[in-house]
């Protein structure tokens, strides 16, 4: 425990010595950087160099600590020298590079952006404005036209002497302007023409079919006429049948006469002949009694 406390005190003292030794070297470097700055005539360069100088000091401190810790003390100053040289070389290389690159790129980008954006924006704005104006004008014209039409229609409707207002309204709602979509009207006309042709063709076909049917029926009638001539024999057969039937009937009549007693001659039963005599009880004289 006591040994540790002693080591810390010794480290701090050695650090102070190393710092005093290092201060000489950065002083020389600073003088060099100051000379270069004066040559370049730029304050920014000086500031950058000052920054680099500040960066060096903490690195040197760290290295000194390490050397004190290690038993080998001869190797450490060589490493310090090499590190100093590398730092100085970096600073020398970095001096001219960033300035022109950054400035040029930014400047170029800004200029390009302005060049590209401004005319496009201007053109687009101009076009948009023009289209907006045109649309506004068109809308205004349409609205004016609609208002005029409405006013004229209303005036005609009010001033018309007819009592059939619904008819007038329907008439006003229809549009018979031929200049509206004339191509479509032409196509519709072609369609109507085709329909009429087909209708006419159908009518002609019907007439032809009717005439053909008439001729066919006429031919059939002629055929039937011929068949009728052949059927005459059948009629003869029928006549024969009729004759046979008549003979049978006559035979039946002959048979019936034998059995019928209606017409036989018989004796007289009543000689006075009813009530015709004058001596009867119910006899009454009338104007016909003389007869």
């Amino acid at each position, binding site marked *: 425990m006591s040994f540790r406390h002693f080591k810390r005190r010794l480290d701090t003292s050695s650090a102070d010595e190393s710092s005093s030794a290092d201060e000489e070297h950065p002083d020389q470097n600073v003088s060099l950087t100051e000379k270069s700055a004066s040559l370049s005539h730029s304050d920014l360069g000086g500031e950058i160099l000052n920054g680099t100088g500040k960066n060096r000091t903490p690195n040197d401190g760290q290295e000194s600590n390490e050397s004190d810790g290690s038993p080998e003390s001869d190797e450490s100053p060589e490493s310090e020298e090499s590190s100093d040289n590398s730092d100085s070389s970096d600073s020398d290389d970095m001096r001219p590079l960033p300035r022109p690159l950054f400035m040029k790129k930014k400047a170029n980008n800004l200029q390009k952006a302005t060049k590209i954006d401004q005319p496009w924006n201007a053109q687009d704005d101009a076009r948009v404005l023009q289209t907006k104006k045109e649309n506004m004008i068109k809308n205004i014209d349409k609205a004016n036209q609609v208002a005029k*039409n409405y006013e*004229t*229609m209303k005036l*005609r409707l009010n001033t*018309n002497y007819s009592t*059939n207002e*619904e*008819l*007038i309204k*329907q*008439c*006003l*709602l*229809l*549009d*018979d*302007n*031929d*200049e*509206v979509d004339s191509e479509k*009207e*032409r196509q*519709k*006309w072609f369609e*109507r*023409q085709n329909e*009429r042709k087909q209708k*006419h063709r159908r009518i002609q076909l019907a007439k032809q079919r009717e005439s053909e049917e008439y001729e066919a029926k006429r031919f059939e009638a002629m055929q039937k006429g011929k068949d009728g001539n052949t059927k005459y024999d059948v009629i003869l057969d029928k006549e024969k049948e009729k004759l046979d039937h008549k003979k049978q009937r006559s035979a039946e009549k002959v048979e019936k006469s034998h059995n019928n007693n209606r017409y036989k001659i018989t004796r007289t039963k009543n000689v006075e002949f009813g009530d015709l005599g004058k001596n009867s009880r119910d006899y009454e004289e009338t104007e016909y009694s003389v007869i």
Partner: protein
Amino acid sequence: MAVNEFQVESNISPKQLNNQSVSLVIPRLTRDKIHNSMYYKVNLSNESLRGNTMVELLKVMIGAFGTIKGQNGHLHMMVLGGIEFKCILMKLIEIRPNFQQLNFLLNVKNENGFDSKYIIALLLVYARLQYYYLNGNNKNDDDENDLIKLFKVQLYKYSQHYFKLKSFPLQVDCFAHSYNEELCIIHIDELVDWLATQDHIWGIPLGKCQWNKIYNSDEESSSSESESNGDSEDDNDTSSES
């Protein structure tokens, strides 16, 4: 007897065609309704026309049926088949225009944007209604032949057109129905086809006719086809001029 018979019935025109009065083409009930309508009394009587000739009637026809090309189609108020149309048709029948007048009106050139499509429709209906009896077999009568030729040409010409007209439906009688029928847009070729095939229009009967068979004549003979081609060329010329 005949004279007394005419005296009993009023509103009969003294002019004659086909050995009868020109007014008898329209049946009695329809004729009475037309003569009793307010439009006829106010606009078409001899006193209101201040005459009884075609010159006075033409003013009324143009005022009622004339349209302007390019104008808004909604604003035209006259309708084919309506009461006004039938009144003017009746007056036209009573006046009986001659061949020159008919030829002029059917072949008028529309200038300064004037469009006579409604007047043409009126005249086609008038020709079909009044001159149904014309027969091409009578070779001695040149007037009849001229009329037949004119009407055939005009029917075929306007069967090739398709301009729009406001109208009642062609099978509807505006006097017979108590409720309002729907108006519609018809085309002139539809009207011509109806006049060529049907026997009535807007409640008015059409007589048997022999010169309106434009489809049969076109399909049967080639000479008529050549004539039709010539007519179509004339139509193109008139359209180009208009």
